[in-house]
């Protein structure tokens, strides 16, 4: 196959392109959610789809998350491959029963006889003063619950490939995109949110972490927007002679534990960065994974930099006090390597 010409796409366009390509390939794929039609999704994940596929395959829904996510579950069982959008992950509380007691459990309860091939997309993340009910990431919460895959792309390339994998997966996949990686014109610009994306469909495997930057001094393991922050920190650190390896976990379920262990075997130091709440979440799990698989390789106790255990405050200085950023990551990494 010829190498495709360089083609710059934002993450949101990469996602909607992935969906469009799968919808063309497979007539059972359809989209539903609030404002996914003419609006194109509040964060642009379904932009252009209504025009291309019409209202029967790109369905605006009432504000009834329990009903339409549950309807996606039923439709998946009866032969469709729905993509349902929960506008903000923060709203999970109005429909969680459908997600974790139904979407995620029916396959198991049926002893493997019933399949629920669906994708649940949702926007995560803060940093723009949207307050306590619209700024959370919560990936740790979903990853705690068995039966659904949990995917978090960080780049346009991964976003497209992971979306195609998610749609083709016979399991329910929660696909969490951070607002700050979408490349939206109305969000704080993020140069990494636009990148070369092949036009033809391709897959990125779910469950395989990706070393986004190699380094031998410290492993920075993280996901989603924090990958970008970690890469920024790694650049600063490189200027100081500290080579950080940035490990993008890309999915929490399945979690690529081997990649964490391998990287720690190499660097002997682990910093976990997480925009989700600190306690009982991803940061503890990744550290425990390193303890279980690489205890004797550790030159220092693993460290975590995570969102403190407080609801997200609205006021900018307060929110930024809480959010991990490149500077805080660099500081934590320096301390960890003892400089």
């Amino acid at each position, binding site marked *: 196959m010829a190498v495709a010409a360089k083609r710059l796409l934002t993450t949101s366009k990469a996602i909607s392109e992935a969906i469009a390509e799968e919808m063309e390939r497979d007539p059972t794929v359809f989209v539903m959610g609030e404002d996914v039609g003419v609006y194109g999704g509040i964060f642009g994940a379904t932009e252009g789809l209504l025009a291309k596929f019409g209202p029967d395959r790109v369905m605006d829904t009432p504000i009834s998350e*329990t*009903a339409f996510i549950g309807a996606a579950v*039923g439709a*998946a*069982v009866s032969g469709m491959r729905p993509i349902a959008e929960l506008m903000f992950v923060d709203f999970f509380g109005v429909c969680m*029963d459908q997600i974790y007691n139904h979407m995620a459990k029916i396959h198991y309860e049926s002893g*493997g*006889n019933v399949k629920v091939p669906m994708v649940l997309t949702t926007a995560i993340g803060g940093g723009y003063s949207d307050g306590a009910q619209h700024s959370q990431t919560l990936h740790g919460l979903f990853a705690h619950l068995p039966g659904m895959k949990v995917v978090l792309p960080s780049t346009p390339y991964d976003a497209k490939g992971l979306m195609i994998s998610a749609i083709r997966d016979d399991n329910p996949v929660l696909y969490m995109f951070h607002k700050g990686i979408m490349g939206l014109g109305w969000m704080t610009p993020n140069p990494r949110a636009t990148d070369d994306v092949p036009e033809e469909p391709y897959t990125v495997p779910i469950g395989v972490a990706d070393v986004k930057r190699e380094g031998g001094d410290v492993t920075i393991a993280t996901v989603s927007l924090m990958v970008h922050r970690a890469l920024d920190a790694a650049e600063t650190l490189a200027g100081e002679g500290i080579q950080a390896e940035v490990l993008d976990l890309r999915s929490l379920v399945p979690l690529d534990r081997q990649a964490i262990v391998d990287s720690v075997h190499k660097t002997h130091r682990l910093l976990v960065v997480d925009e989700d709440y600190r306690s009982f979440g991803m940061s503890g799990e990744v550290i425990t994974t390193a303890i279980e698989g690489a205890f004797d390789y550790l030159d220092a106790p693993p460290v975590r930099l995570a969102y403190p255990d407080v609801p997200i405050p609205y006021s900018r200085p307060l929110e930024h006090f809480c959010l991990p950023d490149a500077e805080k990551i660099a500081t934590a990494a320096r301390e960890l390597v003892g400089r």
Partner: protein
Amino acid sequence: MPSDDVLRDLHRQMVRIRIFEEAMVSVYQEGKTPAFDIAAGPVPGEMHLAAGQEPAAAGVCAHLRPSDAVTATHRPHHVALAHGMDMSRLAAEIFGKDAGLGHGKGGHMHLFDTETNFGCSGIIAEGMPTAVGHALAFKKLGRDDIAVSFFGDGAANQGAFHESLNLAALWNLPVVFVCEDNAWAISVPKDKSTAIPNNSDRGAAYGIPGVLVADNDPVAVYEAAGEAVARARRGGGPSLIEIKTDRLLGHFEGDPQLYRTKEEMDRLRERDAIRAFEGRLVETGALDEAGRDRVWQEARVEVDAAIEFARQSPYPAPESALDHVFA
């Protein structure tokens, strides 16, 4: 009035359900005496039986094909059997055996049958959105199958009820919503939970027909359901049927029922829908006494065989617990 054949089918269906549920009453007690321990015996866990509610299951499901989807609740056996679920695989699942519908992973509240497109859920009202989804898929796939969602009177106050009816009505989907009003949600009587007497009146909130079947009569159910099923199948959209029915047993087995009087229980047992219906059939000659006895006899044989099958089947391997998390 339905034909005698239909009447006899309704009777047969109700009888085999009743015998199954009664068998469950005694199987469930095995290994739990003298000291009742919910975890003990061949059938552990909660056990919600539907004796008394056979008319709803039989009357509605008589109109369905195996390819129609049916979702039910924590009290699912009567509906599952009426919709044609294999009794042996049902029993084996309840016994937690490998030959069960879900290889023992689901259990009595989580029965999934691909042959009859059946599913149920132990979370009140949360099986309703799934039914809407089945119907949505049928419409998209151009199939003239329909979905039927069974739920209790207690479920009708849950948010999922409202959302599901609105969505089905809005999208004109082929769904029949069937409320089995047995007047109780565990210990809470309907008038302590529901602001109006009849949930069928709530159909108006969604612009869909709401039909009340005022007594526990399989023929009345059959007729109301016939209309609703036909409407759904021809693209006329959803409807809501409420059936006043009777829960003859406790909420679950082991329920001391301190909240119900002996008088109420006696009254319910006296008006047992199966006996009443059977009496009518014998009276009108649709069924003779020998035929009636044969129905009970055959049902007993079928149920005994199913339970024997379940009993003899092997348990799944313990480590199979780790399988089937993902396809």
